[in-house]
């Protein structure tokens, strides 16, 4: 009896091993997204958008005759968790490439690991230059991004503020605890001075901890700035805008970067009206209409963090194209294909990668104006 049981057990075990071998027929792609913590809203949207792209690709026959499988881990918007997630994806799940995370800090933290293990990583929305280029000025071979960078974004904000709005007295309120916010502020100030603007107040706060900005706003009010620049994430920006209006700052114009998300309306309400946002995509872009409609149909949810949704969705399509051009499921060859991407038509833009810094070249900046309860397309700009 005992022998029988043992035999059954061994057979079952053998079956499992064979089953695992047969299941190898998928292409495993990792996704590091913020599913909990302060950025959970951004990360959940990325996950759902990436899954949507994969479903479309798989139902159209997959890539190189194989189905793509997405493995998602949470990085909680903490660099140490991003590293753990990347390690697990590479060592245990044996993914061929990784998309995400959406923050610069997370990408900078995982860079040494993905480069030593030779697995390409496409950041969805990390805009800090150090994501793809090291402190020494050398490109990191396995790090890519699909969005534009902070120097460019900072320049766009400065150009729009000084040249298009004609506002030359700016106050800045930035997050001292964030690579993204620090970088964007620096690049904005640099370009703004070139365009003849003057920064009259430059104040900081600690992101993820501070929710009360009235002390800084009171100071900004006394400096008579005519525009308040917000290089931050959505929650903080919405709270700042709301509190500024409560303090009776009715004249000041708010302008911010790609941290903008539609959920900010829920926090700040009407205070959002007539603020400007420089971002990567416009929700009304006709090329993206199908994506937004499918997203809503599948998840019964407005894609409020639309920049994250679009970038994660197109990052999967970019990866698909690279795997096809590589001709085999091999991380090193996929990396080579990513580096030589040229005039690739994605949904939100045509992508050409600069091999010297692994950044997309010449992407237009989109300006949104907050009107009638949502962010609406205002114009496309190129300084």
């Amino acid at each position, binding site marked *: 009896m005992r022998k029988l049981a043992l035999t059954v057990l061994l057979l079952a075990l053998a079956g499992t091993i064979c089953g695992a071998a047969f299941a190898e027929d998928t292409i495993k792609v990792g996704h590091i997204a913020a*599913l*909990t*913590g*302060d*950025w*959970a*809203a951004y*990360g*959940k949207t990325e996950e759902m958008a990436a899954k949507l792209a994969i479903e479309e690709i798989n139902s159209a026959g997959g890539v190189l005759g194989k189905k793509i499988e997405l493995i998602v881990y949470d990085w909680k918007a903490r660099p140490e968790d991003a590293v753990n997630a990347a390690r697990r994806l590479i060592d245990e799940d044996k993914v061929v490439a990784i998309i995400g995370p959406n923050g610069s800090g997370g990408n900078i933290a995982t860079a040494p690991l993905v480069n030593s293990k030779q697995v390409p990583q496409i950041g969805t929305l990390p805009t800090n230059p150090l994501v793809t280029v090291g402190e020494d000025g050398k490109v990191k071979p396995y790090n890519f991004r699909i969005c534009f960078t902070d120097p460019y974004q900072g320049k766009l904000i400065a150009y729009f503020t000084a040249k298009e709005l004609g506002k030359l007295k700016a106050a800045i309120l930035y997050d*001292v605890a964030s690579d993204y916010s620090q970088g964007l502020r620096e690049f904005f100030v640099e370009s703004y001075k070139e365009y003849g603007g003057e920064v009259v107040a430059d*104040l*900081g*706060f*600690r992101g993820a*901890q*501070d*929710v*009360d900005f*009235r*002390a*800084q706003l*009171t*100071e900004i009010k*006394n400096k008579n700035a005519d525009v308040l620049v917000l290089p931050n994430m*959505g*929650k903080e920006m*919405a*709270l700042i805008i*709301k509190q500024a209006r*409560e*303090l*009776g700052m009715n004249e000041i114009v708010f302008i911010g970067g790609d941290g903008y998300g539609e*959920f900010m309306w*829920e*926090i*700040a*309400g009407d205070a959002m009206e007539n603020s400007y946002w420089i971002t990567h995509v416009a929700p009304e872009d006709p090329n993206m209409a199908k994506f937004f409609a499918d997203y809503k149909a599948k998840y019964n949810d407005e894609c*409020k963090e639309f920049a994250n949704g679009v970038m994660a969705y197109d990052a999967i399509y970019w990866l698909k194209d690279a795997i096809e051009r590589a001709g085999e499921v091999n991380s090193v060859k996929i990396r080579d294909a990513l580096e030589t991407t040229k005039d690739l038509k994605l949904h939100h833009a045509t992508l050409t990668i600069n091999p010297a810094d692994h950044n997309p070249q010449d992407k237009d900046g989109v300006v949104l104006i907050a009107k009638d309860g949502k962010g609406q397309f205002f114009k496309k700009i190129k300084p």
Partner: protein
Amino acid sequence: MGTLLQQIINGLSLGSVYALIAVGYSLVYSILLFSNFAHGSFLVIGGYSCYFALKTLGMNIWLAGGLSLIAAGVSAILTERLAYKPIRERTNVTLYLLIASMGMSIVIENIFVVTVGGRFRALPPVIPTNPVNLFGLATTSAFDLISLVVAIICLGGLQLFLTRTKWGLAIRAAAYNLRIAGLMGVNVSRLISLVFFVAGVLAAVGGIFLSVRYTLYPQLGGITIKAFVAAVIGGLGSLPGAVVGSLILGLAEMLTAGFISSQLRDLVVFSLLVITLLFRPTGLFGKSVGEKV
């Protein structure tokens, strides 16, 4: 002058909300001699209950507020019964309670992340936030004045409850010595539940104000770390201490951010804590807990 007045009002209104939360820390500490780090979760429970009562049940603010106070109070009792009571009955080392409370706070936060999602929500504008001009000297939000008044009413009510009722007397006796209070016929289990209920209710009041002013999300409870620091500065276990500590902290935060530098805000707050503890290890109003030989 206008700016100074403005920052003082900002500081007082922030401090008053801290006080509502700090008092809960102090109450629980005075009876069980441990800091309940799950206290921040009651604030989140209060905020979400109020949100859903307003949005899905369509209640008015008074009903929704009442419901959320009860929800948070009951959750506090349940937390105590599930997580702390079994430990209390087995050991009198309060460190285990402290660790259990940290665990509970993570559990409750993640229950919200999983069930309602991490998205930021805002309570409908049930509390007016329009700017109010104070005799032409400063502009403040009507909300600040309301939160200040509500905090005073709640804290005054608590004071009356503790000094004028039989249960209040029992709580004060238990704060003096829980064991002897038990020997004298006080139902200790019921008393502890009552203390948690009161702490939960006050946290929910703070939770509603914080989620109207800022926003509501599962990690909102993290803000209570400041209230905890305020309770320690005032002296854990002392209610007047918790109030005074909170007002000092609120003012220190706003004045530092307004006149020195916003980056130094937390540095100043935590330095205040260190300096207080150096000179008065039990806080400003704390009673020294000496071992009786």
